């Protein structure tokens, strides 16, 4: 993964729980441009390990003067978002990956319908700009519980095709009326809680939309869990995975060579063969098929964990 060493140029509190960060090239050189829906992986050194989390880019994709992300503080997470909220300040140096995209717009669409729940608004902020530049018809629906939680409002343009639904104010998002009657060739994109993604999938299935016109942001941060041990086959070494560490992070800390890209269970890059498994793999990825999960011979270390007595990996 190619890396960039950038400077934290701005930190802004968007809402009680969400901060916006802007990173720039210290020399002022232009950064690689990107496509709507792309994300960055941010490195966060903590003690002797490096935590890496991926965040959607929210800035103008064709503007190489800086990259912006928005991070919601998750007090129960593994600590990545807390690090961003408490340790990162303007003027700091920060290492990020080049942008990559697992949630791109399908530019064949006649029209794009974007549906966001809560912090799931982030990938759409760059997509909106790309859609504007490409002059493609779209509408955006953004649902949040309260106006205070709706950090994205500040970053959204005021436009007739941008709709904000605040449930506390009694304006709940009605998927049926949003999706029914959309022109043939419309694509829908959802990012937010699993419940919202499933609801959109169900609704579009009822309306007979082709599956290939229904997209959702697949990656999430790796969940914390109970600690466990894993054996590296080539060296016989046992690696301990702490509660607030992902398996991938633990392997990296133990200097085991392993490839990655998204760190969110969506790209397939960290796919690893399991050579012994006495117990149950807790698959949290979006990459393996149901059959592969059941067989317990493959694991995606960026997301998945283990419960049992022995797990050996072909590394």
């Amino acid at each position, binding site marked *: *993964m190619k890396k960039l060493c950038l400077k934290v140029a701005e930190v802004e509190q968007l809402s009680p729980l969400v901060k916006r960060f802007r990173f720039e090239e210290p020399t002022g050189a232009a950064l690689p441009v990107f496509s709507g829906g*792309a994300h960055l992986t941010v490195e966060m050194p903590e003690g002797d390990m490096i935590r890496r989390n991926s965040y959607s880019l929210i800035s103008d994709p*064709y503007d190489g003067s800086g990259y912006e992300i928005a991070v919601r503080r998750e007090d129960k997470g593994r600590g990545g978002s807390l690090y961003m909220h408490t340790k990162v300040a303007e003027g700091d140096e920060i290492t990020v990956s*080049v942008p*990559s995209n697992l949630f791109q717009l*399908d530019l064949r669409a006649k029209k794009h319908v974007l549906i966001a729940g809560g912090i799931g608004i982030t990938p759409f902020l760059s997509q909106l700009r790309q859609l504007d530049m*490409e002059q493609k018809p779209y509408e955006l629906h953004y649902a949040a519980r309260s106006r205070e939680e709706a950090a994205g409002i500040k970053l959204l343009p005021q436009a007739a095709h941008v709709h904000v639904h605040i449930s506390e104010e009694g304006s709940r998002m009605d998927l049926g009326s949003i999706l029914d009657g959309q022109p043939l060739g419309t694509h829908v994109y959802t990012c937010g809680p699993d419940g919202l993604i499933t609801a959109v999938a169900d609704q579009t299935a009822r309306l007979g939309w082709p599956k290939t016109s229904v997209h959702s942001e697949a990656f999430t941060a790796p969940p914390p869990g109970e600690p466990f041990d894993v054996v590296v086959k080539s060296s016989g070494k046992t690696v301990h995975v702490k509660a607030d560490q992902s398996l991938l992070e633990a392997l990296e800390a133990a200097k085991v060579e392993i490839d990655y890209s998204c760190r969110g269970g969506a790209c397939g890059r960290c796919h690893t063969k399991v050579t012994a498994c006495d117990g149950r793999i807790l698959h949290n990825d979006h990459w393996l098929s149901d059959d592969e999960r059941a067989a317990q011979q493959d694991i995606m270390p960026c997301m998945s964990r283990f419960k049992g007595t022995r797990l050996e990996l072909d590394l």
Partner: protein
Amino acid sequence: MTMQFNDETFRGDYTYHNSPEAIRRFPFPFDQDTYMYSVNIEQHPGGPKGTPFEKMFDVDEHYVAEMKDREITLAEDPLRCQSLPHMELAGWDLLELIMVSKAKDYPDLFTLHRDGNDWHWINKPLGIEKKFTFLDATTLPCGPMEYITRQTQGDFALLHERDNNLWMDAGMITSQADWSLDFDVGMNFFEWHAPVPKARKMGVFDKALKFLLAVSQGQHYRRLNWTMTVNPRLDTSPENYHKWGPEKRTITPENVGQKQFLRVELQTFFRLPRSNALAFPIRCYLMNLEDIASNPKWGRRLHRVLRDIDPDLAEYKGFAVNQKFIVDYLSQFDDGAPTSPGIFPDA
């Protein structure tokens, strides 16, 4: 200009030829004495100085003649260049990648001045000077992909990524090893690879696709592929099979060294920034057996590879009919001595 460009043809009188320098830098594709399909992918660019692996887009002595040949092929058959409407953005990405890379790697041949979206491009070998507005197709004589690939050696496929697959939704294909863009356009990775023997069962395509989907910006890769062609012909397309297919029958033990060419494809992979599409340039290098055998290591090795190759591969690559002539000819260069690892000539 420091580089000399050959005056030569890839059809009719076939005056194509390789200088001693071109022979020395030829991308010989075999790193051992046997060959089978594999996921042979490595990082690009990067390689010893002077090799075709050193620069993002290799420019060599055949540049000007190859571009003339492309022009002839396109004039006869405009469908060799196609781009579905949603691929125009990928075309701009490709144009940017090539112009920026060539201007940086070959400053004496190509120049690019950029002021915001006002671009000024100078291509000295082809005598082109053009001012245009980036991302505004009305300021170019044709689409951005066609514009830049009429000035760049090699074929180009632009792949759209969706549903965990790659789709061949645009391309400039005039120097292909017997496959057709007009037939493959709109197909996905498994569909267009369907005619290839053995590889799917070996798991090569599943692995290769997973790899390609994970290619990210700023990290480029390459692989070598090869086949055999009678006469130095770039356009070995199914559309024109009637023109080149019969030429296979003209091979004799006397002329095989000059008329039989090893055709090597330097294939590269680039993730494009704005479209998130994948660019797949396929650069073709041709060298006849005589020139290959002028390098003792390559002569020995090519003999062993072609003698022992899986018959299904010889059939698919279209040289089974002449395999005996080829192997008999090459045997005179194989004294049985061991060969050194890797593709490069012994010093």
